[in-house]
């Protein structure tokens, strides 16, 4: 690509400071990050245009498009340069090749406008790029400006910074940024004759993340073929065999030795157990054994599918996007959402996304800046970035973000976890798909660039202090509108009057075309002409085209007779499609670039050639250095303070500052929203109506138990599943129609103990799934969430050299609601009744009774006996009751002088009790419940807005609900609250 000179520079800023939203937002970000010396920030949006454009054209663009005359002013320059200003100036530009959605939209709109005005022009505007300029007042040293740029304004893995401040004047680029051009040259990688060390070295240098046994298998395969692999062949195998794509740890054979499972799980009498395939012998096995007829597609497609009504199923998928979010939180989280939504689009012949979910695990946003290791972004910046990414992608696509969770633990400092989920509705007749030999291979959506190369292998290794530099190319910025267009086109092609216009579809995830085409061709064969893939810029090598993770692309298998109709449907929605080859029955995957064959892989070897190894797993008991959450000694004197502090703590306070940023109403289906009741208390789960003309609903709820509460991963898994089910039952879902998804995030599985923890969690999933008759339908794991600190940092900060996350298991549940008008919320309702606690103690290690508790509560709800229901979590009963008061803006008076067995304090604050708090009608019959759980008459609802409790030794607490409410809403305001202008 030739260098393009910037012909015009258009600088747009707010006419008055009060309309400079970007500047004011930046100022508040700076204040949060501790830059109190900054007194003002003004932001200017810059558009740089290249092409055959006259000043009149630019003026037209400004008048009609780029500038809002009511509130903005513009400066038009024909040269690039810094304006006169006494303030420090910082310009933030994107790195060459990074997605710039605004520029993409602007270039089309600019050309339209000029050509409509003057039809003699074709495409006068060749390129547009955008940038932001910040004028910063109040700083008194250049270093300070540089620090502001680095810590707040820009992320150098996707952005470039130019500064004019004090003595420094950076030269601004006068050309549009372009990516380097590569010449075509076929490259082979010599493997034959290499010894073990050399093979390991090839894997390392090529960043293939292949183990030695895997490298030897590949070496032998190509030796038998009598040739060396080409670079693209080797890289394709590395992607296909990566942990990210094939889940080789979870699917490996495992020899387990350690503590037993079930009620015996605390015993020191060790058992041995062999698993042929850990996933298949635990999680999948439970689903197969249960064999529910309402499970329509499990563990085989991009998402699991359960029955909804006679005509439709519901698809659900949850993914993680941890490593990209650690390095570029906004882009990483946004593309995580985009990828998960594409899994829904690529489920069967395409499901329509109807809801998104998320869970974030991060360190305390109040983390001391001085204790931040090199290569790690501050937790506040990470959290704000991922919320922004999830918000912008979901909102722009018009998918409501309905449920979420947030967990804090310092062990997530270097490895934040970003779980993103998506739910879709799919006609039953479109669940099955199969590409046919003779079908065309069609790629649709965004163009391919160098962005995101090596995503799958990148996700499969551990992070280090230099990772941000080495893997910057794996990080991307999403373009939600491109994906929305693909969604619109896909549904129109699926529901076309001529019948579905394609025989299969899947998304391009990590691994790009290599994984999408590779998977679709698995039982067939394919020939791909890589030069036919539409590119963002010329000069990509064949392996870059094949492996780029560039976003917003889907691959379709299209019968030749339907090609033209499909093309017309997509082009009408503004989506580019390209015919890049053919599926055939050759059993091999042939890659061509113009007239040359650049790769030919045996599909059986690619998909089944990975060497199987048996891993050893041990579990002697929880690690000794794990500090469990120690309950503080609670007395009559401190009970009230402790309850208020817990309500206000970041761990259990209101998530409102996050939810408010998500459009949870779009599509019009919301029935139970994230905040419920007149007092806007917390909801246990979301309920939506996927069809506007029906009262049938879908409930979505989650569970995640911390190892600090339950250090044995076996019980941690069971408690997580129980929590997801409780949440769903609370809103009115039928417990016999709940399906769940697993997402394992582990620090690493290299050592036997970590593997042992994984085995115990999997076995817990199996045992709980069978006990509750709740099948898993889909899952995904991310098993390398550790960070290698630089040796200096480890010593300086007194942190472990390898900083790993705790074993983390997210259970996402999806439930069926026959009639949403029967749904229940957690807020206390007017008009009396009784408040009862229904609970059980996890220390009893008793699982068998629990399913009956959930069934009995569900029966009560169905029977209209329950006016409010709320989950008892590991925060304790008092906390849950307080939340019900907040939601209902009503009081409750506990009368626990008759409490059985336990002391009142234990009952109200114990974090090992789980269950439900129910506001039931006076005449409710709880006989059935009492057989399976402890049932305590907990409180009377009151209208005086006081929550009170007394023990035999006197008053424990008596708090106004306004006070509870204020505490609960305060926890995240400092770090996430809307800006209060000052």
């Amino acid at each position, binding site marked *: 690509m030739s260098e393009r000179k910037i012909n015009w520079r258009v600088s747009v800023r707010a006419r008055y400071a009060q309309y400079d939203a970007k500047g004011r937002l930046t100022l508040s970000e700076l204040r949060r990050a501790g830059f109190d010396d900054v007194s003002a920030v003004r932001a200017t949006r810059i558009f740089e245009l290249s092409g055959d454009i006259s000043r009149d054209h630019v003026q037209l663009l400004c008048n009609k498009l780029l500038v809002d005359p009511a509130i903005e002013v513009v400066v038009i320059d024909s040269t690039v340069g810094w304006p006169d200003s006494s303030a420090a100036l910082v310009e933030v530009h994107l790195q060459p090749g990074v997605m710039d959605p605004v520029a993409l939209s602007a270039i089309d709109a600019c050309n*339209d406008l000029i050509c409509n005005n003057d039809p003699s022009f074709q495409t006068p505007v060749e390129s547009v790029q955008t940038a932001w300029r910040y004028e910063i007042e109040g700083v008194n040293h250049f270093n300070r400006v540089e620090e502001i740029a680095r810590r707040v304004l820009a992320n150098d893995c996707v952005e470039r910074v130019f500064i004019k401040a004090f003595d420094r004047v950076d030269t601004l680029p006068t050309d549009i940024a372009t990516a380097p051009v590569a010449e075509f040259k076929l490259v082979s990688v010599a493997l034959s004759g290499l010894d073990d060390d050399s093979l390991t070295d090839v894997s390392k240098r090529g960043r293939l993340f292949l183990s030695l046994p895997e490298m030897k298998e590949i070496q032998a395969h190509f030796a038998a073929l009598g040739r060396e692999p080409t670079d693209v062949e080797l890289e394709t195998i590395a992607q296909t065999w990566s942990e990210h794509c094939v889940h080789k740890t979870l699917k490996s054979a495992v020899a387990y030795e350690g503590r037993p499972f079930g009620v015996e799980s605390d015993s020191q009498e060790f058992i041995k157990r062999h698993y042929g395939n850990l996933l298949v012998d635990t999680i999948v096995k439970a689903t197969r054994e249960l064999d529910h007829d309402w499970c329509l597609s499990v563990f085989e497609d991009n998402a699991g599918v359960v029955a909804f009504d006679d005509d439709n199923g519901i698809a659900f998928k949850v993914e993680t996007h941890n490593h990209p979010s650690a390095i570029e939180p906004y882009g990483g989280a946004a593309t995580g959402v985009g990828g998960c939504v594409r899994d829904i689009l690529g489920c069967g012949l395409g499901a329509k996304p109807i809801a998104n979910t998320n869970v974030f695990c991060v360190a305390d946003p109040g983390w001391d800046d001085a204790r931040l290791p090199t290569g790690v972004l501050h937790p506040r910046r990470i959290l704000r970035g991922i919320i922004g990414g999830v918000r912008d992608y979901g909102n*722009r696509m018009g998918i409501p973000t309905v449920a979420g969770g947030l967990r804090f633990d310092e062990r997530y400092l270097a490895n934040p976890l970003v779980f993103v989920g998506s739910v879709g509705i799919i006609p039953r007749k479109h669940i099955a798909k199969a590409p046919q030999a003779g079908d065309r291979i069609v790629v649709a959506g965004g163009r391919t660039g160098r962005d995101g190369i090596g995503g799958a292998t990148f996700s499969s290794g551990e992070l280090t202090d230099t990772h941000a530099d080495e893997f910057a190319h794996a990080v991307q910025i999403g373009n939600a509108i491109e994906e929305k267009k693909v969604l619109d086109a896909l549904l129109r092609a699926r529901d076309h009057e001529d019948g579905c216009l394609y025989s299969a579809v899947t998304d391009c995830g990590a691994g790009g075309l290599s994984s999408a085409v590779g998977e679709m061709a698995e039982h067939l064969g394919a020939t791909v002409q890589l030069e036919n893939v539409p590119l963002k810029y010329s000069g990509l090598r064949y392996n870059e085209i094949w492996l780029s993770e560039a976003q917003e692309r889907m691959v379709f298998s299209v019968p030749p007779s339907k090609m033209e109709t499909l093309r017309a449907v997509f082009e009408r929605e503004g989506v580019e499609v390209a015919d890049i080859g053919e599926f055939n029955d050759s059993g091999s995957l042939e890659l061509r670039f113009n007239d040359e064959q650049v790769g030919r892989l045996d599909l059986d070897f690619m998909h089944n050639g990975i060497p199987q190894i048996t891993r050893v797993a041990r579990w002697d008991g929880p690690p000794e250095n794990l500090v469990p959450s120690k309950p503080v000694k609670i007395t009559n004197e401190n009970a009230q303070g402790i309850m208020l502090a817990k309500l206000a703590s970041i761990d259990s306070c209101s998530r409102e500052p996050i*939810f408010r940023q998500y459009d949870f109403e779009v599509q019009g289906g919301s029935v139970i929203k994230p905040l419920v009741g007149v007092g806007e208390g917390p909801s246990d789960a979301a309920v939506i109506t996927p069809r506007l003309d029906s009262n049938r609903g879908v409930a979505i709820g989650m569970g995640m138990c911390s190892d600090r509460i339950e250090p044995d991963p076996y019980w941690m898994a069971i408690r997580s599943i129980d929590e997801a089910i409780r949440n769903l039952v609370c809103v009115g879902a039928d417990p016999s129609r709940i399906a769940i998804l697993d997402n394992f995030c582990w620090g690493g599985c290299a050592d036997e103990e970590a593997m042992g923890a994984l085995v115990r969690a999997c076995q817990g999933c199996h045992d709980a799934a069978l006990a509750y008759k709740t099948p898993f339908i889909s899952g995904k794991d991310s098993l390398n969430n550790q960070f290698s600190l630089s040796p200096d940092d480890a010593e300086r900060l007194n942190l472990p050299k390898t900083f790993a996350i705790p074993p983390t298991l997210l259970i996402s549940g999806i439930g069926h609601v026959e009639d949403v008008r029967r749904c229940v919320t957690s807020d206390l309702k007017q008009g009396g009744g009784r408040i009862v606690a229904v609970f059980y103690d996890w220390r009893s290690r008793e699982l068998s009774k629990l399913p009956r508790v959930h069934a009995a509560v569900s029966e009560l709800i169905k029977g209209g006996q329950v006016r409010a229901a709320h989950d008892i979590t590991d925060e304790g009963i008092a906390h849950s009751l307080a939340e019900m008061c907040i939601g209902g803006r009503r009081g409750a008076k506990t009368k626990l002088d008759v409490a059985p067995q336990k002391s009142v304090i234990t009952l109200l604050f114990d974090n090992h009790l789980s269950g439900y708090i129910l506001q039931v009608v006076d005449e409710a019959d709880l006989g059935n419940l009492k057989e399976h759980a402890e049932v305590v008459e907990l409180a009377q609802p009151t209208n005086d807005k006081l929550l009170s409790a007394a023990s035999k030794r006197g008053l424990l607490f008596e708090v106004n609900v306004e006070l509870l409410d204020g505490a609960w809403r305060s926890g995240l305001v400092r770090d996430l609250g809307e800006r209060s202008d000052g």
Partner: protein
Amino acid sequence: MGKPRVAILRSAGINCDEEAVYAWSLAGAEALLVHLDDVVATPKRVDEYDILTFPGGFSFGDDISAGAIFASRLGNVLSDTIRRLVERGGLVLGICNGFQVLVKAGLLDVGTPGTSCSLTMNTSGQFTCRWVTLESKSSNCAFLEPNRKYFLPIAHAEGRFVVSDGQSVPVDRIALQYTEGVDRIGPTNPNGSVCDIAAITDATGRIMGLMPHPERFVRHTQHPFWTSIPEAAEPDGLAIFRTAVKNVG
């Protein structure tokens, strides 16, 4: 007269089109999706309809600014068509992104010569999704009952209504204002709009643009605390569509 016909304009990034179809059909109209490109190519197509709706979403990503590219593509092509539509008793409704489009395309303003208006970033600096209480003032707006309160959700980042000359907006152009609610938390005016403006109308009262989403409250179970209140005779959002259907023609 048969059912009024509603054209709902869609384009890349529009995402509240289906619920708008549903809301209009519940109100007794017949609503169809029409692609922006078709209208730009053949503006006369709008003559087949009684009501034109610009639905919510993020048209073209709201890149540059909310609604700017949609408005720029629309250009002047609909000015005449819309004038004819209004003259024959038709109606135009812009919801959220649709309101932004109407304003930025110059199809809706405050009617004071030399004063331009716009919708820009909320004073909070971020996207906000919450329910708000609104009050209708104008007695001639075809979508509203005069002096009635409406409870509806907003979901926008750029909903702050501003006018170029400072503060004054003619009273007859103000259709809905954010107002104190009985049961809600949070600021009365959620985005810093001048004069608490949530919706404006043209001189005839037949064109209205509003930031709240009436199409998201046409059923009882969409109300944020429906589990603790009795079912109302008519959800507030549906009331707006029904009033419009009553007043068309």
